[in-house]
């Protein structure tokens, strides 16, 4: 143990980390030889695609789970106008959860793997979804709701046809926060046994400094792509909803 550490520190002193954008881009597109995998190559577009898909898959699973848990509760409480304290406390407490400790603890408690990480990541998605669902529905103009009720809509119709369309911007803000929190934290999934793009970042000794920088660039691009994608989806849904409303 001690000799290996000494070796690593010595290597770092002799060859200070010299990651470069060019090196990182090369790493993304062409496999590189690594000195710890015994001649096997690392990086390259195939591995990049594989890890990107794995991170996306984890994000989608976790987001789906958190939507299933948080949306019904948030929408129900918002519609009833009760449980404001509950929604606020959940939202604030959710922000205080240290991601690294959560992932590590869930892995320790229920083992490593996709299912367990999905649950751990969903825990991070639930607070913003629940709080925004509550706030979005709750702040819908009561006059619009009363009008809908006067037209003979059932409570469920009011929620589906009046409150949700009017709350779309807030609901989507919650979905975006949850997605970003989940995809960002999915980066550290390799510590709990699921390989994502974060593997490039965390396993510096396998992928080298160019791999680390490549991983950081790819993770940043993935998060930004999701954010911009959801933002444009939100614009579409919003305008449609508001156009449909008067009809």
């Amino acid at each position: 143990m001690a000799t290996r550490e000494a070796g690593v520190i010595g290597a770092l002193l002799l060859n200070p980390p010299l990651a470069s954008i060019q090196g990182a881009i090369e790493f993304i597109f062409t496999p590189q030889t690594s000195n710890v995998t015994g001649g096997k190559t690392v990086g390259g577009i195939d591995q990049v695609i594989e890890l990107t898909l794995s991170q996306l898959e984890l994000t989608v699973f976790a987001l789906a789970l958190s939507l299933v848990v948080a949306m019904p509760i948030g929408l129900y409480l918002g519609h009833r106008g009760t449980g404001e304290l509950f929604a606020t406390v959940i939202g604030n407490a959710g922000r205080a959860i240290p991601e690294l400790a959560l992932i590590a603890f869930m892995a320790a408690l229920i083992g490593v793997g996709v299912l367990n990480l999905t649950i751990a990541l969903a825990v991070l998605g639930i607070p913003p979804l629940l709080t925004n669902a509550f706030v979005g529905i709750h702040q819908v103009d009561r006059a619009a709701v009363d009008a809908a009720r006067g037209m003979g809509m059932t409570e469920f119709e009011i929620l589906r046809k009046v409150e949700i369309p009017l709350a779309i911007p807030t609901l989507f803000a919650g979905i975006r926060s949850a997605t970003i929190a989940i995809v960002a934290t999915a980066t550290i999934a390799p510590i709990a046994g699921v390989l994502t793009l974060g593997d490039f970042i965390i396993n510096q000794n396998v992928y080298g400094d160019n791999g680390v920088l490549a991983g950081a660039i790819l993770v940043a691009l993935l998060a930004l792509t999701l954010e911009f994608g959801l933002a444009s989806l939100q614009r579409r849904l919003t305008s449609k909803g508001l156009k449909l409303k008067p009809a």
Partner: protein
Amino acid sequence: MANGVLLAATGEVGKGFIQERSSDTLPCQATDKLFCWEWASEHIDRYATPTLQHLELVAISVLIGFIVAFTLALLAHRHHWLQPPLLAGTGVLYTIPSVAFFFLLLPLTGRGEDTAIIALSAYTLQIIFRNTMVGFANVPKAVVDAARGMGQTDRQILWRVELPLATPEIFAGLQVATVSTVAIATLAAFAGGGGLGEPILKGGISFKTNLIIAGGIAFLIAVILGLVLFAVQRFLTPWQRARQA
């Protein structure tokens, strides 16, 4: 610190932090208890340094973030055309996952505390900037007109009327930014920035007591700082309480 990263990286987690100092912790790990009180009471002192480092990371990052975001907000308040680009720019910084951010800075600033502080403060910009702008936007137009009618200059209106009235929103932003930064600062250990993430990375995922203590301290710091900032905001804006009563 490179040591901790490498341990986690090569999958040899569960060693180092726990075992290097005392072998008497082994039975505790072996029994796979959820929380090992004896170990905790004997070794709680080793969390002191990471906790202090964590507080330092958060304090410096939020302070820098606040100064930058607040200045940008004042600029955008005076020159409205700056608002969309600043919102978009801080939004991009906010969206980049912090682990990625730490390592994007790697070629520029290397591993260490500076890198962590830059990334963490960049993360707070969006929250504080947006909340400050919302605070300004919520100031009633009539109040500003009244102040102008009393002969106040733009500068006086800003410092005596608009800023005090925007305090609740500004503080809400500061609160959210602080609480989030406490949580995210656990990831600074990946970049060699220390903090409470370090015992987690070094201890690995097999020793739950360590995870609960380190994670618990971080969670408590976040909750306490959140409540303190809330109390300060209530103290600074007594008229809000009067309105509610």
